[in-house]
């Protein structure tokens, strides 16, 4: 039998009681940790051996219920699935345990996830279909059609991506990666009839997919490998394919790349801003354009560099384009 290895780890645990505390604080515990313990084991030991008032959510202990998600040294994790030794290897032996969102803390590691569920509700996270109440046979989905869901169906709604998304932290209207993944999951389902309704929701400015900053935090943090940003890209594609893309700065920003590459191979940065913003909108960029020009950062249209063998690029754009705007 493998001998049990252990090491001493310092835990700083976020404490806050909405009903009694004005400010949060951290309690420090120094514990010997064995190689087989996960974060949830430590939370249990602190609660059972040191302070019975420590509050956190736990249920299945098998990484499937999604309630024990918290942050360790800023990284979103499932407490029941993350081994201490792995975390210590990355972060050293001072482990900081916090709720997924400190500003939404109710008691210690328990947060109010209302915003998360509200965002889900916005995208109708369920099949919308006219099915007879007593169907004569099963509604089968072929393996080929099931593959279209990609990994979106694996989401356990733990909220790790939602509370790691920097766009959402600033813009509270933003629907966020978890709900976008859900929007994709049901819209890609062959049995569903509400894809267009959902696409209209995710196509809205400020709340929709266009405000994604593409930081890849959601893909990184997801404990179930849902890869939400891949689904966000799919939703972008579906908006264009459905022909409902509005003519605005966000859509022109994406389409402008194809125009520019077709003309120069490279991106004409100045022209992309002008095309995306329009002739009036572009005015607000004039102060920074002047500052950049003064430092030799703006290439004049007549000096715009072009890719060698540009004819190849043009030919490929002609033959490989799959959508129109």
């Amino acid at each position, binding site marked *: 039998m493998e001998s049990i290895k252990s090491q001493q780890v310092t835990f700083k645990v976020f404490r806050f009681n909405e009903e009694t505390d004005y400010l949060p604080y951290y309690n420090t515990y120094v514990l010997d940790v064995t190689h087989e313990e996960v974060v949830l084991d430590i939370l249990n030991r602190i609660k059972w051996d040191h302070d019975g008032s420590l509050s956190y959510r736990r249920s299945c202990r098998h990484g499937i219920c999604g309630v024990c998600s918290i942050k360790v*040294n*800023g*990284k979103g994790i499932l407490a029941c699935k993350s081994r201490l030794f792995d975390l210590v290897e*990355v*972060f050293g032996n001072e482990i900081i345990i916090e709720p997924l969102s400190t500003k939404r803390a109710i008691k210690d590691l328990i947060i109010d996830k209302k915003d998360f569920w509200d965002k889900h509700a916005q995208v109708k996270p369920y099949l919308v279909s006219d099915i007879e109440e007593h169907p004569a046979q099963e509604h089968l989905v072929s393996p080929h059609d099931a593959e279209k869901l990609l990994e979106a169906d694996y989401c356990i709604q733990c909220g790790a991506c939602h509370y790691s998304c*920097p*766009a959402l932290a*600033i*813009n509270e209207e933003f629907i966020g990666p978890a709900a976008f993944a859900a929007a994709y999951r049901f819209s890609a389902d062959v049995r569903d009839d509400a894809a267009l309704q959902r696409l209209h929701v995710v196509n809205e400015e400020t709340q929709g997919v*266009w*405000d*994604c*900053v*593409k*930081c*890849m*935090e959601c*893909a*990184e943090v997801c404990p179930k490998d849902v*890869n939400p940003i891949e689904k966000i*890209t799919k939703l*972008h*594609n579906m908006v*264009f394919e459905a022909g409902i893309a509005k003519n*605005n*700065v*966000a859509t022109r*920003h*994406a389409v402008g*790349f*194809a125009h*520019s*590459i077709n003309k120069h*191979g490279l*991106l004409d*940065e100045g022209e992309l*801003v002008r095309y995306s*913003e329009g002739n009036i909108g572009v005015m607000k960029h004039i102060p*920074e354009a002047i*500052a*950049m020009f003064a*430092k*030799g*950062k*703006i*290439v004049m249209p007549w000096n715009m*560099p072009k*890719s*060698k*063998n540009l004819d*190849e*690029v043009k*030919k*490929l*754009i002609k033959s*490989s*384009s*799959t*959508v129109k*705007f």
Partner: protein
Amino acid sequence: MEKLKYALYTGCTARESTPELLKSTLAVADKLGIELILLDEASCCGASHLQDYDDFLSLVLNARNICYAEKLGLTMVTICNTCQLNTAMTKHRLDTNPELKAKVNAKLAEVGLEYKGTSEVTHFLYALIQDYGLEKLAAKVQVPLSQFNIAPFYGCHNIRPSELQNLSNGGENPYMPTSLDDLIIACGGVNVNYEEKNKCCGFHAELQSPRTAAILTGNAIAGAMDANADWMVTPCPLCHLKLDVQNHGASKALGRDVHLPVLHMPQMVGLALGCTPAELGLNHHVTKVDFV
């Protein structure tokens, strides 16, 4: 050691709004005896936006770029994080999906090209660290940057998603990246730790969501300032554009004046190797580089 030789994919920014990046990259390569062949045939990577419009077209164009590195039989080196992400993502998708690769190759055949998957794709930062070696680099330092507190700003698209990036970045952990810190130390500088060093600068949402982008930029600069940094360094020209050019908007969004000189990664290395400010294009910065 055999002379290092790479195919350099400059990306668009280094040819337009950050000429100092290309200049300093070539200067550093020259100092270290690294040979860089410019891929002048390459087109734009789509900067993570073209694929939102037309994913297949984005794949075909990125695959074409890699074909030219393959023709030279060289590893492709990028100097922009977003070029790195888009190119590496394309490579990964084609290398793991024969059906998709065949579809893309059917298009490339029209222009007499074939994507084979024989060239690796890596960012210049990681080529310097893994192929050239930090110890060897440190031994070449002529002007140690020891009087400077330098804040590393990693940029998302070199470190996330780690599953993809770890194929070329030596297993960097996105929650605790070390490469740029190690490089600062190798150059004799003092690396500054701050919370935003591995966070997003907001560049990709700048046009459609200016407030979000400005706050993210502001947070990054403020984090570095509060950690007592003298200047910042980044391997990504898109982060550089946000941090160097857009700090007025960021200051306004934050309600606090934020500005710090920001160097491109090769500019920092070049300074330590004894390159002149002119060789590194330090005159191209909007936020004045006032310490050289």
